[in-house]
């Protein structure tokens, strides 16, 4: 009898939601994600890259700051897998160490965006009325400024540095997360179990923490991957304008920007452009595709 389930012939996709009961929610998401080869490749790629980034200084025989002007612009070889840059520094080592800064900024900016976005969104969705209209108008205002422009503006005002760059990028994502959270909070707020919690006399704070946030978190967590991808692109853009983390501290964006100075010598110095660009594009691609895969795994009906 344990095979008996709610039938759903008219809408075949529903059978999958029925099956959720077998595993936990996240177990089911993981199960579906495992079946998606693209997501698995992305996950493996990110894991390898992350390990390389963490252990860069252990794995590489080169010092990422050591200049060696005799070995400037060497093309890839057995000694320098990705060649050397304009100061004769090993490019691969610099890219791996640079990844620490790029990913740190990206993750930090998304974390800031999520924390503030969640607080604002939950407040709006939960309290409604004046709180909602005031906060949402402010969010509208921030959204009316193109994201990149806002990041430029904040970056200019705050100056360079890891945290400042992260903050500059985060401000633009706050309204997006807040809006999403607001609508899902409003949806949940209308549910009967919130009514029930209120009828027991639970405090607003406790309801937000125990009911609203956990129930609206899942979709946000999934989007983290997409937001990180977007942040990597934003960092590259800021670096390109000369904002963000300043050399000699390596960071993917500024390494690429540095390489772009030699674009007219592309035939001989191609590696100083191609490799940093590849790191940025592949990392972002992996985060984006993983995000898409996660979204599909969470909602099989979205799959097309």
């Amino acid at each position: 009898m344990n095979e008996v389930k709610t039938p759903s012939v008219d809408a075949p996709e529903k059978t999958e939601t029925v099956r959720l009961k077998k595993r936990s929610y996240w177990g089911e998401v993981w199960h579906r994600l495992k079946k998606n080869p693209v997501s698995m490749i992305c996950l493996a790629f990110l894991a390898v890259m992350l390990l390389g980034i963490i252990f860069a200084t252990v794995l590489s025989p080169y010092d990422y700051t050591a200049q060696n002007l005799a070995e400037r612009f060497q093309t890839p070889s057995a000694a320098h897998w990705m060649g050397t840059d304009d100061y004769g520094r090993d490019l691969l080592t610099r890219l791996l160490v640079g990844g620490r800064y790029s990913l740190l900024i990206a993750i930090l900016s998304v974390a800031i965006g999520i924390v503030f976005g969640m607080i604002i969104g939950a407040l709006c969705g939960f309290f409604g009325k004046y709180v909602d209209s005031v906060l949402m108008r402010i969010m509208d205002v921030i959204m009316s400024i193109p994201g990149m422009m806002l990041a430029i503006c904040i970056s200019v005002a705050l100056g360079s540095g890891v945290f400042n760059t992260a903050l500059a990028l985060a401000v633009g994502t706050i309204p997006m997360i807040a809006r999403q959270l607001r609508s899902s909070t409003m949806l949940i707020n209308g549910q009967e179990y919130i009514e029930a919690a209120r009828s027991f006399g639970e405090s607003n704070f406790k309801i937000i923490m125990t009911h609203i946030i956990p129930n609206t978190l899942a979709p946000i967590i999934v989007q983290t991957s997409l937001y990180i991808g977007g942040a990597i692109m934003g960092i590259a853009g800021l670096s390109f304008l000369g904002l963000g983390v300043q050399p000699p501290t390596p960071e993917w964006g500024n390494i690429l920007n540095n390489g772009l100075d030699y674009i007219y010598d592309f035939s001989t110095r191609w590696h100083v452009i191609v490799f940093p660009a590849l790191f940025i594009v592949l990392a972002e691609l992996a985060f984006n595709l993983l995000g898409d895969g996660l979204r599909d795994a969470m909602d099989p009906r979205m799959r097309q």
Partner: protein
Amino acid sequence: MIKYILRRLLLIIPVLLGAIIVVFTINYFSTTDPAMVKLGLSASDPVKLAAMREQMGLNRPYIVQLADYIWRLFHGDLGNSYVYAKTVWELLAGRIPNTLKLGLGAMVISVCVGIPLGIVAALHQNSAIDYITTTFAVIMNAMPGFLVAVILMLIFALKLGWFPVSGAEGFKSFVLPVIAAGIGPITQNARMTRSSILEVIRQDYVRTARAKGIAEGKVITKHVLKNSLIPILTMVGAGLGTCLAGSILVEMIFNIPGMGMLINSSIMAKDFITVQGCVVVCAVVVALANLLTDLAYAYVDPRIKAQYTAGSKKDKKAAEAADKEASAA
């Protein structure tokens, strides 16, 4: 309808004002002292610095400075450059056309190429053309616009020599920059159009249309497209923001004297009031674009139009009342 347009026009004012306040406030708390930038080398003299601060009105309270900035803005004055003996508007005015040409060009191709691409991909779901479009979209979505600009420049300008490497003279020099700034929005539009069509095509009313015996081609043009393109339309206006921001970076690759290059040089010179002016101008352009899309949206979607068209007040309640009447009969 006119009421709706007026209402939307009025709504845009607080948003714009808010945007100006946000940008001004960010700059107000800047770690760089404008007086020091203006004085340059002689900033080390504290007397001169204090005098300059006084002269620039930097000692006034925040709210007074803000009000002053907004007041001047309404008179078309974006302030004076810290670095050059010019107003920000003088620096900016000549740059706007190039950036607008680029941004609007990018938006036009993003609509004219992206949406048809999405339609074709959706209608041939899981075919080769669908896979190619989707893969292309995914890759391009992960590419910063300026990188696309670099690649285009390397291939079509430096290697093949089909287009000029830099400058803003004539149509030819805009081809590569427009493609570079537009490719991100193209792929975004294509992706959204595709998923929107696939969403609509599963709707019950499409099945109803098929059950009427309407040929598949007509089902698509009459029922699917209109419904699926309405949500895309809302994104077109927002797309201009992306296009403008993209063109700012692309300009620098192709050396097009637009706002992007101005922003870049102002950042280098710490002439932040000019950066502020550029951001404000962009915010205004984007707000206007959003307004236009909203109006277009209201025009094509009867559900929204009905709320604002005078005369037809047959809302749900009236419908239900009529329903009851019919049941009584």
